[in-house]
């Protein structure tokens, strides 16, 4: 009777590179989109810094304003704005999809499901801008 060497079964571990997110354009966009959350946190911290300066008085606020005028801060804020817009556009496209009913088994077009969110975004932007400029 033939005997076979016994081998221990091992867990299958697919191997992939640490740079998997550079492999495809979609992966890269996914990672950029997800990392937009870093810029959400970043500008919340800046806003808290601003309110803290307001609470401390005119001199502290003047130094906050001077800090924001630094070219590197302006550059960082332009990049942050680009990521924030990416965040809002992709979030508006993604989340409502889960709530809309399908018509005749087909999902509604993305533009239709995302439109209410874009309208709310526009209203929020105008209202906040009016408060900021009218301050």
């Amino acid at each position, binding site marked *: 009777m033939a005997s076979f060497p016994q081998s221990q079964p091992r867990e299958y571990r697919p191997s992939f590179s*640490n740079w998997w*997110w550079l492999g495809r354009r979609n992966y890269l966009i996914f*990672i950029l989109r*997800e*990392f937009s*959350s*870093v810029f*959400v*946190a970043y*500008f*919340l*911290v*800046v*806003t*808290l810094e*601003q*309110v*803290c300066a*307001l*609470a401390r008085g*005119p001199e502290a*606020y*003047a130094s906050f*304003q001077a800090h*924001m*005028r630094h070219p590197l*801060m*302006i550059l960082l*804020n*332009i990049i*942050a*704005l680009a990521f*924030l*817009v990416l*965040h*809002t556009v992709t*979030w*508006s496209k993604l*989340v409502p999809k889960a709530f809309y009913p399908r018509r005749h088994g087909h999902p509604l077009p993305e533009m239709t499901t995302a439109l209410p*969110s874009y309208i*709310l*975004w526009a209203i*929020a*932007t105008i209202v*906040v*801008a009016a*408060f*900021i*400029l009218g*301050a």
Partner: protein
Amino acid sequence: MTKRANEPAVWFLFGTGGFIAGYLLPVHILFFGILFPLGIFTDPGYEATLHLFEHPLARLYLVVLCFFGFFHAAHRLRLTLVDFLRIKHLETQLGLVLYSLALIGTVYAIYLASIV
């Protein structure tokens, strides 16, 4: 299945946070981070901005924005870093650090809203 029990609550916070931060933060960055520093629009200045933040609704706005925004960012960053750095085994510790930071940010926002 018990592990999934709190997912809808977490998703509600996460989803709402995504919209609140997404609708409100771009206009904040646009004015306070780019247009005022560049002088394209005139900065209303200390007195007027302080007056704006003294309104009770503006204080509430600050706290709501920070609470939802920070927890959205913490949750999303946890999910992303686990995939990006491939550290599934550290997910609990990572979550603890990120949610703690979000809590600290929110508590600081409540403190500032109460003194400004």
